[in-house]
């Protein structure tokens, strides 16, 4: 048996303060009895009650005792620590006591408020106070560490969210790295035709921001790039970014576009949702930033057949670079904004919609391109055979609010469905039928827009689509496609026929959202979107300090909400940069090298990759700056070599013993 050899503490002098909380506690708990009980516990030198401990006089009483009675531990028995722990920690600090030499016993939320039984509540309060007194005995003062903040910021994703956040930070003259995996920034918004409810031209309002960003002295734009690895912690992140080979020298290219004119090979255009074509060397869309083409290896004659090089021949700038390779760039930043966006639901997995089976069934996003003046049809709404539809059905909630796919509401579909309806009405004589479940027009001016559309004469049919069939040869009055929809409440079945169907597909998390979550050590919610720190009070931060989440990667939202969120995140980042320093978690884990067996189990399970193995000494080490203090490694360590500051095994055991007395 070994004697304990770790250094121990000075004589412990504890003060216990029991709050009446008006009648909130004292109405149920016999606070005087609890105080009397506490006064007899080991190390307790004072036990007092007060009506409102959190009030100025209450705090003053504690401060005075700390000074006069030479207290070095304080226990307050009152409400939940989530409520007033910061208050009393500050009280202690003001009296010169380290904030961690304090412990709170929750005798309100966990005790007086959940019972009417005075006797049991009093008994429980005593146990909780005893546990706190025993626990606080083992508390150690902890230092709050601060680290300087790197003033650069990494923005991941170049859609409207990323653009907005990046511009706002860059305009404050702080460096921004904007990483976008596509060849151009712009995201989904640049694909849109008009935006609801104002009917602004999407490209018209976004393009100026894109070009501002493209030439901004404080922005380094890294398109066709992805973040591969992240290390470090708030204030001091290091990101490894893969800049994929573009085969065109960005420095030399003038963006003249000759190359794509000369290129003989074609492929479906991603930007046009496959409705149009582009060349093997192409600029994704006219307003692209950067305005530099890219070679699509898969569809390039040279790469596939070894012959061609037409682009190279015609490029006066000599910018074509067939031997281009991926580059790894390392950047150091203090904060990170994730704006990785969304993808739309693929309706072909839901057979009832007939998408992919019949012609002229398109998604809402495809409709945007169809409708857009720069799109493949020059803005003409037409069927595949080139004719103008006589009737169009717009189906809401495709993949949203559907138990089979996504439970949630995608928030924008109702509104863009109305907008589509308006555009169809504007450009054709077609009849429009909206097949909806509920119409949700919650935003500013949205209800007006709805009223306006109703006035324009759209039909509204309530129902979930059961089936889409070909109506050819059947006795339908108009339209080639027969839609069967059922009212989810009444069960009433309606038949609608149309020449064209627009499916308002759900906004869903990017396919690789979990990889993003992993790379950046942030959490995913069950629905697959990135999780914010608090849904109400901290909706743009994540639980990893220094990493923020904006736009649709956090959940479906419309453009105004996205922009507001992006600005909010930018403001948060700027606040950190301005402060210049960040506080690190004090309650971290630390490994005792003498006790570590070097089994490395902790290395595997740390979600923050804060633990590394020292090959020389054959022991593990915790980078305290990375540690968030979850304690998972502590509980997993077989040899008990990890101490969790402020949640030490001794402290928790003392608490166990305390509550069991």
């Amino acid at each position: 048996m070994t004697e304990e050899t770790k250094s121990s503490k000075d004589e412990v002098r504890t003060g216990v303060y029991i709050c009446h909380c008006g009648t909130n506690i004292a109405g149920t708990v016999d606070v005087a009895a609890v105080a009397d009980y506490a006064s007899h516990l080991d190390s307790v030198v004072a036990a007092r009650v007060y009506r409102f401990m959190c009030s100025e006089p209450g705090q003053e009483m504690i401060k005075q005792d700390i000074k006069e009675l030479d207290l070095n531990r304080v226990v307050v028995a009152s409400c939940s620590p989530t409520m007033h722990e910061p208050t009393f920690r500050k009280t202690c600090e003001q009296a010169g006591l380290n904030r961690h030499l304090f412990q709170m016993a929750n005798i309100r939320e966990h005790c007086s408020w959940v019972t009417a039984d005075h006797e049991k509540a009093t008994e429980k309060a005593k146990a909780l106070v005893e546990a706190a007194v025993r626990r606080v005995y083992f508390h150690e003062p902890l230092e709050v560490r601060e680290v300087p903040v790197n003033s650069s910021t990494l923005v991941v994703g170049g859609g409207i969210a990323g653009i907005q956040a990046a511009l706002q930070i860059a305009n404050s003259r702080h460096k921004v790295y904007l990483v976008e995996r596509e060849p151009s920034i712009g995201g989904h918004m640049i694909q849109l035709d008009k935006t609801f409810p104002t009917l602004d031209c999407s490209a018209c309002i976004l393009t100026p921001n894109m070009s501002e960003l493209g030439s901004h002295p404080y922005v380094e734009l890294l398109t066709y790039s992805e973040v591969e690895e992240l290390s470090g912690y708030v204030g001091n992140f290091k990101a490894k970014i893969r800049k994929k080979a573009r085969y065109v020298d960005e420095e030399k290219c003038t963006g003249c576009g000759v190359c794509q004119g000369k290129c003989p090979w074609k492929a479906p255009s991603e930007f046009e949702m496959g409705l149009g074509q582009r060349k093997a060397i192409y600029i994704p869309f006219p307003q692209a930033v950067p305005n530099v083409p890219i070679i699509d290896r898969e569809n390039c004659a040279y790469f596939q057949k070894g012959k061609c090089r037409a682009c190279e021949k015609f490029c006066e700038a000599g910018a074509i670079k067939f031997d281009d390779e991926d580059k790894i760039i390392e950047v150091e930043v203090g904060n990170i904004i994730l704006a990785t966006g969304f993808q739309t639901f693929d309706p072909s997995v839901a057979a009832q919609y007939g998408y992919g089976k019949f012609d002229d069934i398109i998604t809402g996003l495809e409709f945007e391109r169809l409708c857009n003046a720069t799109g493949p049809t020059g803005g003409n709404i037409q069927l595949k055979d080139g004719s103008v539809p006589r009737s169009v059905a717009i189906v809401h909630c495709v993949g949203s609010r559907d138990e089979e796919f996504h439970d949630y509401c995608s928030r924008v579909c109702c509104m863009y469905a109305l907008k589509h309806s308006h555009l169809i009405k504007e450009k054709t004589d077609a009849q429009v039928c909206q097949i909806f479940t509920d119409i949700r027009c919650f935003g500013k001016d949205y209800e007006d827009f709805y009223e306006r559309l109703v006035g324009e004469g759209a039909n509204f049919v309530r129902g979930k689509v059961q089936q889409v069939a070909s109506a050819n040869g059947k006795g339908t009055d108009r339209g080639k496609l027969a839609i069967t929809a059922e009212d989810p409440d009444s069960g009433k079945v309606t038949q609608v026929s149309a020449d064209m169907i627009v499916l308002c597909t759900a906004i869903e998390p990017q396919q690789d959202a979990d990889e993003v979550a992993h790379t950046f050590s942030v959490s995913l919610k069950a629905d697959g979107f990135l999780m914010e720190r608090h849904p109400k009070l901290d909706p743009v931060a994540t639980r990893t300090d220094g990493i923020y989440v904006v736009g649709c990667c956090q959940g479906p939202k419309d453009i105004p909400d996205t922009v507001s969120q992006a600005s909010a995140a930018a403001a948060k980042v700027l606040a950190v940069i301005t402060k210049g320093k960040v506080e690190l978690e004090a309650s971290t884990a630390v490994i005792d090298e003498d006790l570590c067996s070097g089994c490395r189990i902790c290395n595997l399970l740390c979600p923050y990759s804060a633990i590394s193995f020292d090959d020389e000494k054959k022991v593990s080490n915790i980078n305290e700056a990375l540690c968030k203090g979850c304690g998972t490694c502590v509980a997993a360590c077989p040899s008990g070599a990890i101490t969790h500051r402020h949640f030490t095994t001794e402290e928790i055991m003392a608490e166990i013993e305390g509550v069991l007395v």
Partner: protein
Amino acid sequence: MDKELIQQIRDKARNLLKEGTVEGVIGYERASDDLTSRPLFAYSPSDTERLIFDETCAHNLVKYLLDKKGKKIAVVVKPCDSRAINLLLNEGQIERDNVFIIGVGCPGMVETNWNHKSETLQAKCRTCQLFKPVVYDFLAGGEIERQAEEETYSDITEEEAKSVATRREFWLEQFGRCIRCYACRQVCPGCYCPVCFAERLDPLWVGIRIAPEENDMWQTIRSFHLAGRCIGCNECERVCPVDIPLSLLNRKLEKDVKELFAFQAGLDPEEAPPFATFKKEEVMEFEK
């Protein structure tokens, strides 16, 4: 006794020592009863003449590698013991380059005590499906053909069928006999914490009383520490001087770990141990 097998072990050991490949060879020699066997540490080529191998060589010699860290050592390893090598490699306790593994095919070990050798195979051997070490550098005696019973965990399911109260009584009686000699810990290749929890004062998990309540704590924690790590050599049970059926604990955990996490310790030196990993989609009984 398989003379040819023994000769192969001796030849290999002698050559390894002669060539300076290793500093020592850990194998088996005849015990002082002239009947059973005991560990032998051979440091010179002449020592290797004492090496033997037969059905009494129950000791898991892998444990000793923990005493010889940083040294080049050869060790004679049965199939079950070889899982301990993988365990220790997995947990970073030994380095593959430092260990030369003389594997032996295993016909199964018989129940032995000093001066006693029974004809019956040890229970663990009857259902053992490993006839060849899972890792080795040299396989002495070649592969062995042998028929083993199916592993049904019938002893465990039998216990599980009893009432909780019956089991409580049973274990209290068993643990009540424990004299806290710690032989189970000392012999276990998976027990290598620099300071055992049983010897920690900060916190005090278990006191010095050799009495049921503290023995209970000791045995509960000891066996749970080996959850997903026990490689089933059953040395703890073999050495227990008061015959506590420790395999009933170890095998229960082994069975559950297999069922819950589809994991068996010591088969793969790279696979993450069950408590160092998880599957998001898995659903445990208490969640149903």
